[in-house]
């Protein structure tokens, strides 16, 4: 290892200085390039003797081979179940004895992980994470145990109406696409998974070329640089992630009803959305705030506050890599489903036709920008923001530019984007329950 550690202080985020009173500590993001050439972003914070490191790899559930659905989730459950010369019991005991937390999570596009450790146990934590990533054992016993655990949770979610609605929405809208396959697998697909599948999938997605690393906490840049190499340096240079084609929701405007004997219907809806790298994304984000940003937003006011139809109604932008979406949902008693869906379509239409008002935009902007600091009150929040900045390729100076990006959006922009993006006729709706007066226009493929 050379002593030529390159530490670049590329940016000092200024967003706090514009929004927050003088004297507040700014969030300084440092870009640290390890001796081995891996770049990590770091926010140093020595208030508490804790390090939180988050990282992700290119390739998630969408990269699972056909018929191997649930593999990414099984991988997330088995990486810390024995590695190197430690079996599952020894590995779990090592983590517990030193209060080290290693966790993994599979998303549609990426596979992420998180390490949380006290400074006093950091060396041990680094060794354990390195071993888990480079020499997982996938022994038969823990793999079987984790399969059983995932199948039990599948049995719960397959019977749960909310989860049913979500699965059906994806399956109906992405019938021939990786996004449409059951995201956590099926009882059958999980039953067929084995150690060989895990090793093959891990080898394909866990490589340095698809890796993004960020950290927050009690560590200096030089130590962080060497830590990055110790954890990730032995991973292969390149991976082999199957490319995923772009797609759009397949049943725009259609309604799918799944009969279920429950007193309250679950409604899931959605349409195509806006890519994260689209220059109009900031406009879309403001529009979504106007439409569905909680109390004061149009959907909540019309559907919950004025009429008492729901406990919650929501919609959000989901800019997936290969299919940007707007998704939403609500739940209401069977007798009032038709009315609730009509109101969603009406608000969709109204936004599309007339755009937002100036007052709404001003409120939305103030809220979006003002609440940002609330996400920084713990290491986990800061680490999440850092990783998502990297995953969306926003640049290390994004927080300096964020206010200006939103401020630059004009009312005309918003009207244009509202008209282009929000399309009441494109909304596809899935209802699970016994909705009165709602007829399905399509059925689920194969069901």
């Amino acid at each position, binding site marked *: 290892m050379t002593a030529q550690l390159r530490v670049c202080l590329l940016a000092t985020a200024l967003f706090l200085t514009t929004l927050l009173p003088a004297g507040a500590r700014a969030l300084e993001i440092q870009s640290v390039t390890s001796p081995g050439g891996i770049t990590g972003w770091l926010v140093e914070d020595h208030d508490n003797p804790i390090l939180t490191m988050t990282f992700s790899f290119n390739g998630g559930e969408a990269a699972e081979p056909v018929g191997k659905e649930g593999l990414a989730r099984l991988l997330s459950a088995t990486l810390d179940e024995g590695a190197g010369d430690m079996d599952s019991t020894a590995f779990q005991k090592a983590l517990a004895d030193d209060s080290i937390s290693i966790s993994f999570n599979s998303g549609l596009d990426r596979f992420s992980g998180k390490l949380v450790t006290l400074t006093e146990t950091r060396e041990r934590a680094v060794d354990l994470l390195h071993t888990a990533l480079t020499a997982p054992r996938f022994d038969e016993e823990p793999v079987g145990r984790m399969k*059983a655990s995932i199948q039990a949770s599948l049995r719960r979610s397959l019977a749960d109406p909310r989860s049913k609605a979500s699965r059906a929405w994806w399956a109906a809208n992405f019938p021939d696409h990786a996004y449409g396959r059951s995201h956590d697998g099926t009882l059958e697909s999980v039953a067929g998974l084995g150690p060989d599948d895990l090793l093959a999938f891990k080898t394909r997605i866990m490589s340095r070329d698809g890796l993004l690393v960020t950290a927050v906490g009690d560590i200096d840049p030089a130590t962080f640089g060497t830590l990055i190499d110790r954890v990730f340096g032995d991973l292969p240079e390149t991976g082999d992630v199957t490319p995923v084609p772009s797609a759009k929701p397949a049943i725009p405007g259609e309604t799918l009803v799944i009969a279920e*004997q429950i007193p309250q219907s679950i409604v899931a809806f959605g349409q195509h959305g806006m890519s994260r790298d689209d220059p109009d994304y900031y406009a879309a984000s403001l529009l979504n705030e106007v439409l569905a940003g909680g109390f004061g937003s149009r959907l909540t006011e019309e559907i919950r506050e004025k009429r008492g139809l729901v406990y919650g109604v929501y919609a959000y932008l989901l800019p997936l890599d290969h299919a940007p979406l707007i998704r939403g949902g609500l739940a209401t008693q069977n007798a009032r489903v038709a009315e609730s869906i009509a109101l969603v379509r009406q608000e969709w239409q109204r936004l599309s036709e007339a755009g937002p008002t100036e007052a709404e935009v001003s409120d939305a902007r103030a809220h979006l920008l003002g609440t940002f600091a609330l996400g920084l*009150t713990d290491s986990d929040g800061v680490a999440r923001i850092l990783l998502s900045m990297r995953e969306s390729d926003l640049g290390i100076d994004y927080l300096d530019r964020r206010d200006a990006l939103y401020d630059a959006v004009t009312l005309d922009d918003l009207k244009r984007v509202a008209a282009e993006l929000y399309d009441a006729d494109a909304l596809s709706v899935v209802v699970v329950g016994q909705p009165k007066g709602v007829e399905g226009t399509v059925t689920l493929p194969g069901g």
Partner: protein
Amino acid sequence: MRLFNRLARPFLFAIALLPGLTFGFPASAQIFEPTTFTLDNGMQVVVIENDRVPVVSHMVWYKVGAADEPKGKSGIAHFLEHLMFKGTATMAPGEQSRIINRLGGRENAFTSNDYTGYFQNVPKQHLGRMMQMEADRMVNLTLRPDHVKSELQVVLEERRSRVDNEPSSQLSEIANAATYLAYPYRIPVIGWEAEIQGLTQQDAIDFYKTWYAPNNAILVVAGDATPDEVRTLAEDTYGEIPARDIPDRVALRGGEPPHLAMARVTMESARVDQPSWSRRYLAPGFGWGDKQQTPALEVLAEILGGGSTSRMYRSLVVDQAIAVSAGSWYSPEGLGPQTFGIYATPAQGVEIADLEKAIEAELALMLRDGVTEEEVATAVKRMRRGSIFARDDVLYPARLFGRTLASGGTIADVEEWPDRIAAVTPEAVLEAARIVLIPESATTSVLLSKPAS
């Protein structure tokens, strides 16, 4: 403790929760070092200063919850919590939410058996404004019949979402009613459906006027504010509100008679594909029974069922492979009788009766031989380290102190927690286990799938 929030969160994926399972334990140490004082009108104030980020969490906790409702009015505490957002003499409905949104804040509220809480997380310079608005609605709530009517529908939808659509929640309500013979914890926080339907504006106002007063509230501020700033702002707002006579809620709630028989509830549902099993034992807490036992019970819960190195997980899930999950829970936070719980999810094809036998064998072993020095030492070390991690979240202490104080605990229960945990011995764990884990005080709850007929 089940919390009911005023604001629903988006449900991306449903998470199956075990009946009554509580996450987390009071993680703390003599490291929060709060400042406490009392306003002249009796309102208690707790400040946990931390200038890491220039934001504050401003919380007001009323010492009243679902367990304090008049007979036949179940759900009124939670319904009132919703109605508290419907405006005052000088504030239109929804106006407060709009103001907070514009200031870059977030707000919500929650109701449990023992308390009702309201909070705003905001940039620090807006703390005074939050206190003005919260003090205003402490005394000036103004309701309109149409708003009350539509909000009642919202609460009924909330009940359908949380309970009626979820067999495991339905069973949890039934298990609760079996766990408590007389104590009001037997009634669900959200209320029984028929009673919710009958709640009126007058019921809400009566409850409000009985319980909402500065001398029955705790102000907790965590984040970038000094105790002096908080005192000045609080005196100018909450300090202006006169104290009021508050009923003795402990006396009103009554007690719990001795339990002479084990209870068992079983539910079969066609909407269940994955069976599950749990059992709760009545246990002491901050406000009930022998409080001295609580640290030992927390250590016991960690040894018995705290994660994948615990006795239950090792034995039932790994060694015998008859369960896919297993663990235990316990929290001393509460004014009334608490529960020590254990749970397990059977592996496919395993009969509930066989699982139950294996769990009982595990308990019998522990009750006969106790726990080892090493088990206690490891659990204590891990739990104490948890209190260091708890310091990482600037706003967390507001929630921790609020719920401790509003459910019969004290500042010392938080600050001295690491020392009390460290003082627990294997003998103390065994003694507490033998007192609490007795069949007569247990309620066993079984969720089964009903085969299609």
